[in-house]
């Protein structure tokens, strides 16, 4: 059932680029390859953005031109030709497969395992003519979504696309956009500032507990925003919101380069829980194709007693470059990071977190589980920094790596920088493999090798998986097993 809601989300996104979709001007909605000021003006004009927004984009573009692509991560890829990339709504290939028979059977098998209905499988796989079915499905869901929207409105929650928000709530967007991830932050974030296509805006008013888990699915007019997505979530004093991003079904995208920015702001006593399941196309067994995912995610605990919690399950993308972080400014604020990153075949993941302790009595917890298989490389990179004024800081970090096979790599690069003696910082890391005993034990009870691995891996990742909202938890467990297929035997 959950698969269905998630799937519909994608359907909505995919449908947007087909002529049967409910956006009528789609055909003209893409800019030519390459990046220059005109492309940025085009994007801004398409979005009917106010002048200040265009100026903001252009300023970022000017900065970006002077910046260099970072090279410190443990990833390698051929140089990215930014002038050979679509920066806005790249057109989808129109000559998709005629029926499911033509679709990569590997992909179909995965859909099946995740329990996705046939009709939706067609849409996901981009089968020609399937869009109409999908659109019907979406139309069905629109009424559902509208119902949800009403309920949210009643609570005073603002939940819309960021383009809409710029028009309807410019004061909020102007105040908070770029306030957590500054325009100049890093190469990919700056690029995003210049070209972001759309994304989500959430505002939870004072004292409101958001009545439901939010996910992009409920946002109407969702377009293909996977490439340069921009998310801004503000939890005002005493509010709570749980946000779900992504999808367990494998996502194909013509655009190889992804650079999203997510900004979270938690004011006094507010709490934001942000959960991600990332399963973009990882490329084939030989590492051909696959998404380059360069994401900047950061949350600011601005208020006293605020809390931001990141949970991520990363199984997709050829390259994952992602460090969801917390800036703990408010006294007594709390930051958490729970991560499972799985790499197989030729995938490369360099992911982790930063916990910057500025306020007094701030606490953070980092649990990272890396699983490497095939010929992949999986790196945890994390920073815990305690500033001079941050008294009584507590941090606990645990990063464990599991290696499946002798051709993969597992790396741990933690930084601990402490400027206050009252801090208590603890860090632990281990590296191990699945023991023969564990395999034997499982297989003696009738599991085959892959099932046994899936079970052990799920046990290894349990501490993180239990942090996922119910909506994701079951599927994410299956996903771990599927991602590691072919890694044993």
């Amino acid at each position, binding site marked *: 059932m959950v698969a269905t809601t998630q799937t519909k989300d994608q359907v909505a996104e995919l449908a947007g680029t087909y002529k049967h979709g409910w956006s009528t001007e789609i055909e003209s909605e893409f800019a030519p390859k390459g990046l220059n000021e005109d492309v940025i003006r085009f994007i801004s004009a398409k979005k009917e953005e106010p002048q200040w927004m265009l100026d903001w984009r252009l300023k970022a573009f000017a900065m970006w031109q002077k910046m260099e692509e970072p090279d410190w991560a443990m990833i390698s890829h051929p140089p990215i030709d930014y002038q050979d990339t679509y920066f806005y709504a790249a057109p989808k290939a129109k000559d998709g497969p005629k029926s499911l028979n033509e679709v990569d059977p590997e992909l179909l098998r995965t859909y099946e395992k995740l329990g996705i209905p046939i009709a939706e499988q067609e849409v996901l796989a981009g089968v020609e003519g399937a869009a109409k079915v999908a659109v019907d499905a979406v139309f069905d869901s629109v009424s559902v979504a509208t119902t949800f929207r009403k309920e949210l409105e009643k609570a005073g929650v603002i939940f819309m696309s960021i383009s809409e928000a710029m028009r309807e709530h410019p004061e909020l967007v102007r105040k908070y956009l770029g306030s957590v991830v500054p325009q100049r932050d890093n190469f990919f974030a700056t690029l995003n500032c210049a070209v972001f296509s759309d994304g989500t805006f959430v505002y939870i008013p004072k004292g409101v507990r958001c009545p439901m888990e939010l996910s992009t699915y409920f946002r109407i007019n969702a377009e293909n925003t996977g490439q340069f997505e921009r998310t801004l979530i503000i939890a005002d004093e005493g509010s709570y919101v749980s946000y779900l991003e992504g999808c367990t079904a494998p996502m194909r995208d013509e655009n190889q380069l992804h650079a999203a920015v997510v900004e979270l702001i938690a004011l006094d006593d507010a709490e934001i829980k942000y959960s991600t399941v990332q399963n973009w196309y990882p490329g084939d067994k030989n590492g051909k194709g696959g998404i380059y995912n360069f994401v900047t995610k950061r949350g600011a605990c601005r208020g006293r007693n605020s809390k931001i919690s990141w949970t991520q399950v990363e199984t997709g993308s050829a390259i994952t470059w992602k460090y969801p972080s917390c800036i703990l400014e408010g006294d007594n604020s709390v930051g958490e990071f729970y991560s499972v990153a799985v790499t197989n075949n030729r995938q490369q993941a360099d992911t982790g977190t930063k916990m910057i302790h500025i306020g007094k009595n701030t606490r953070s917890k980092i649990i990272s589980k890396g699983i490497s298989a095939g010929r992949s490389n999986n790196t945890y990179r994390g920073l815990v920094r305690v500033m001079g004024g941050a008294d009584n800081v507590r941090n606990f970090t645990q990063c464990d790596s599991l290696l499946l096979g002798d051709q993969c790599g597992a790396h741990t690069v*933690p930084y601990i920088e402490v400027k206050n003696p*009252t801090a208590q910082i603890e860090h632990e890391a281990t590296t191990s*493999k699945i023991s023969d005993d564990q395999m034997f034990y499982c297989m003696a009870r009738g599991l085959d090798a892959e099932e046994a691995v899936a079970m052990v891996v799920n046990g290894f990742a349990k501490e993180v998986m239990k942090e996922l909202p119910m909506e994701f938890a079951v599927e994410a467990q299956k996903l771990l097993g599927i991602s590691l297929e072919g890694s044993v035997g």
Partner: protein
Amino acid sequence: MMMDQSSDISGFQKAYDTTRPALPGGGWLQELRHIAMTRFMSLGLPGRKLESWRYADLKALRKTPFQPVTKAPEADIAAIEKAAIAGLDAPRLVFVNGRFSRPLSRLHTLPADLAPKSLRDVLMLGGGSIRDLVMDLRDGDAFDQLNTAMMSEGVVIEVPEGMQVKTPIEIVYLVTDADNGAAHLRNVIRLGQGASLTVVESFAGDDSRFFTNQITQTTLADGADLTLLRRQHEGSGTVHVSRTYATLGKARFQMASIASGSTSTRHELRADVTTEGGHVGYEGIQLARAGQVLDTLTFMDHAVPSCTSTQTYRAVLAGQSKAAFQGKVLVRRDAQHTDARQKADSLLLDRAAEASTKPELEIYADDVQCAHGATVGELDADQVFYLMARGLAPNEARALLVEAFVAELCGNIANEPVRDAFLADARNWLTSANAAMDAPKEGDQ
């Protein structure tokens, strides 16, 4: 930022040009020096943007044109005795401001076939074997290049196959009355099969401005056992950069280091284990006082199966000081059954102190045991309370706990006078750090 500019090193070129005629070594070595100097000038001093130098402080090297010392001042034996290890009856080599002093040394107690030579003598004599002696550091970083270009003094110790040297060899480096001088030292220690040796180095000095730039290359054949013990307590005007290379077969390399000296210190241990069954052990203590930046880097390269390494690092920071530890374990593809452990603990005694730790694992083999742990914090208030409840004054209680924290690492040193010297170093540091801490603010929480 200013720190990252490498332009400010013309002083080194000038120093090289003036010193060159006096540098020991024949034609091939002169050529090697020239290439190294050219490389150094193009590399520049590493800035903070360079990952492995992010916590180091090389300001003083950019500001002061340190001139290699060609003639050392007179030093009296009392100063040497003070710097050396009390009660250690051992052969002793003495360097004053980086120049070997035969009269102050004590070589007569050495066995006949274990004669340490001065690197300078060896280089001056020339001959084919020296080429093998000097490690090829062409691909190394700026300090490898600088050291190769300028090295003029050091110790060469070769322990023949099967020789078990029972008494340690002591090397004392004293800095006295040095006016912006520099010592570019290269030590070469080679152990034949089944040989064993302990070398103890003590660095000490007054507050004059000085730059110690040392590389120690050690090579251990199968069955060899080398223990390298370092006490680094140079004066507050010194910049100290020392790097130890260990290349070992199925051998045992053990290093223990205690450092409280210099305004800015960088210690490195880079170990390559090349035969199955090799072991590297490292124990590092850093004691930082106001104004100091103490930086340690270790790199354990496991390239073959079934080797082990253990690293334990402890830092105590008082006043406005910085101490950093970057420890890396690399387990290459074929190095199955590697057992690598690493633990880094830092104790902050002052609000203005800053501790940084980066324990890094890079692992490409699956059947391995690799773990690291790191902690940063202050003294446990409960423990302080416990001792105070038994009648100790706050600073006594603190001192006892800090001493225990450091002493745990000295316990493995087999030689008693050396172990006592390490403990005494820690105690002396504590006394002065405590005095400095108690001076401005009275009482304790």
